[in-house]
């Protein structure tokens, strides 16, 4: 229990410390230490959950079960590894004069703030607080997106702000509707109307019409944050213009959290509706996102932008998987959340180094990384291979499950899935290959890059591809049971 509080409090404290100390030279160390300790407490929390099962805090505000514990762990982990990367990266940015002391303070403070809001969103039991945290995550990052104060970054920041703001308001409307449905059936005077544990217990009794309506609002709302087409437009802009560590966290974690919220609501809506409406909607959005993102990968000139489209594509896949909803697909979707966030954050870290090496994010000017700095080149290549779903990396496993589940339940959707995958792969790889291989331009210089986070991430993804550890399999299975009614083990 204390571990949970500590996990939440540490980043919160960090916000204030770094708001004052963010411009100092020790800031990166403080940031890293905070993140590491947070990760350690998250680990303790995970152990606790593993030992005793789900935890409900006194006051029922916080709740950790098999579904979110691994996401919390993942969050803390990626937060930590990205902090390792972010130190030298931001130093380099400061050295070339792209950020000043004030913005450094803002950056570090908001880094912690971002982590806090995400951890809060994951661990809260209250659906209202969930909304507040997700909105808070937007607010924490919106200034980071426009950190560089260029035309493009301000444009990206503004679009991010408005689109996500408007989108997330709809999610609030959905939440209100859920509350509205809940107060009908819960005993009068109870304050539990937004507690997920309570709602889940009574899910089957709630009014179907209201929940269907609510789900539409929630889907459009949180879907905006997930990056589902056609609500995705902020995503490539925000990812490509902000500092790269932010892109790594946005892509690796924030999208996951929005999807997490959506899936939590799906768990409530499904028993009440008794039909597959929520699943069908999610499948539709998933497929659309997947296809459109795959096609748009062919139109990219900017490396970070390209990988952000790849994130849309993968979020689409996950949404699709949860939409299908059988145990196989659900398990695959849950697994995909982990492997995608590990891989994608690793890629963004590498991309950060690559763009420093080339001095630009324009892909046409990044060439022959493997010659200039082999580790960065290989990191980028292997990361992309992993994200493209090649074994022995974990993405392969989850995509395999998704595919077989699709063929089993919705065979007619398999061909578009196949085509979409091929199109997306082509788009990604045709741009990537010349960046990694070939001969570099004369002025391309190696930079001081710490590739350990990347290799740790990829090693983990590799591990998940070869064998899923028993603990994780148990948690994923629990979540699968909650979502799909039966597990796979």
């Amino acid at each position, binding site marked *: 229990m204390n571990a949970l509080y500590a996990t939440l409090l540490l980043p919160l404290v960090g916000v204030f410390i770094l708001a004052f100390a963010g411009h100092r030279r020790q800031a990166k160390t403080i940031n890293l230490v905070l993140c590491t300790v947070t990760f350690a407490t998250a680990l303790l929390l995970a152990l606790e959950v593993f030992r005793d099962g789900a935890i409900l805090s006194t006051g029922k*505000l916080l709740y950790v079960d098999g579904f979110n514990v691994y996401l919390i762990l993942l969050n803390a982990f990626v937060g930590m590894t990205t902090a390792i990367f972010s130190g030298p990266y931001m130093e380099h940015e400061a050295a070339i004069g792209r950020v000043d002391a004030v913005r450094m303070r803002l950056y570090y403070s908001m880094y912690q703030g971002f982590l806090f809001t995400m951890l809060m969103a994951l661990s809260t039991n209250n659906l209202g*607080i969930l909304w507040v945290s997700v909105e808070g995550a937007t*607010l924490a990052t919106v200034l980071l997106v426009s950190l560089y104060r260029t035309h493009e970054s301000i444009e990206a920041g*503004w*679009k991010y*702000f408005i689109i996500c703001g408007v989108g997330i308001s709809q999610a609030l409307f959905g939440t209100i509707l859920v509350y*509205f449905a809940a107060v*009908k059936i819960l005993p009068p005077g109870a304050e539990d*109307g937004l507690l997920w544990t309570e709602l889940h217990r009574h899910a089957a009794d709630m009014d179907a019409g*209201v929940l269907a309506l609510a789900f539409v609002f929630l889907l459009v709302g949180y879907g905006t944050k997930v990056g589902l087409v056609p609500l995705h437009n902020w995503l490539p802009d925000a990812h490509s213009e902000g500092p790269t560590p932010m892109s790594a966290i946005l892509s690796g974690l924030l999208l996951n959290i929005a999807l997490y919220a959506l899936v939590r609501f799906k768990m409530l809506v499904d028993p009440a509706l008794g039909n597959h409406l929520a699943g069908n909607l999610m499948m539709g959005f998933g497929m659309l996102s997947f296809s459109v993102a795959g096609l748009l990968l062919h139109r990219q000139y900017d490396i970070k932008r390209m990988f952000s489209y790849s994130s849309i594509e993968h979020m689409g896949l996950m949404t699709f998987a949860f939409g299908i909803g059988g145990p196989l697909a659900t398990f695959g979707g849950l697994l995909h959340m982990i492997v995608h966030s590990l891989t994608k954050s690793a890629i963004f870290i590498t991309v950060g180094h690559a763009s420093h090496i080339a001095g630009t994010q324009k892909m046409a000017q990044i060439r022959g990384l493997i010659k200039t700095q082999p580790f960065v080149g290989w990191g980028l290549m292997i990361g992309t291979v992993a994200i493209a779903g090649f074994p022995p990396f974990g993405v392969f496993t989850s995509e395999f499950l998704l595919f077989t589940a699709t063929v089993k339940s919705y065979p007619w959707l398999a061909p578009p899935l196949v085509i979409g995958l091929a199109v997306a792969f082509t788009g990604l790889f045709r741009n990537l290959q010349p960046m990694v291989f070939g001969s570099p331009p004369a002025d391309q210089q190696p930079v001081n890059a710490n590739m350990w986070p990347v290799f740790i991430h990829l090693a983990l993804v590799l591990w998940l591809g070869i064998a899923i550890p028993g603990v994780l399999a148990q948690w994923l299975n629990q979540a699968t049971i909650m979502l799909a009614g039966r597990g796979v083990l």
Partner: protein
Amino acid sequence: MLIASLSLPEQGVLTLAALILLSSFLLLAQVRLDSLINTFALQGALIFLATVFMAFISGKYHLLISAALTLFLKVFFIPGQLRLLVVRLNIRREVEVIGNPMLVMLFAAGLVLFSYYVALPIRELSLLSTRNTITISLAVVLIGMLMVISRRKAVAQVIGFMSMENGLFFAAVVSTHGMPMVVELGIAFDVLVAVILFGVFFFHIRTEIGSLDTDRLNHLTEVDR
């Protein structure tokens, strides 16, 4: 359900709901920034009143805290901030160009009908006397969105966004007698931060492109130029 069968405060809430809807239309029709801000403050005030009424109807007096928050944020703080910004950015008299005002208004009227159509199943279900108001709040949300879409100036978009927030708040108050307190506070905090951030952005946009016309923020695109 006949309106005559309701108690007077309840009739009052319904009347206020109608007025709030009207204020949304007014927002849509305003062409000058300062009057836009004033209308927004008026909408906030109406919601404040509705909240107070609801507190007395339902007997849930914690709603009064919400009401106070509303009064502070929506009537004083946000409009005040916006006025300040408008003055400092010197755009008080900037005239908003909206496509075809008549068409937008008609569309908004259509949205009200649509909201009614959508909220029909909820109304059938509701035990609360003020259930009709859910239609109104949905309409306010949608019209707020329409406003964000139809306005090009950043300030107007923010006001549209905030009026969506108003609609949400109104929905929470009248349909469920408010959300749990901790959530209310969280939302209020978010809104507060959002307004501050909007202010920051206005300056950035202004310095970068020389105006607050967001249509000129169009560098990031996949279309070949």
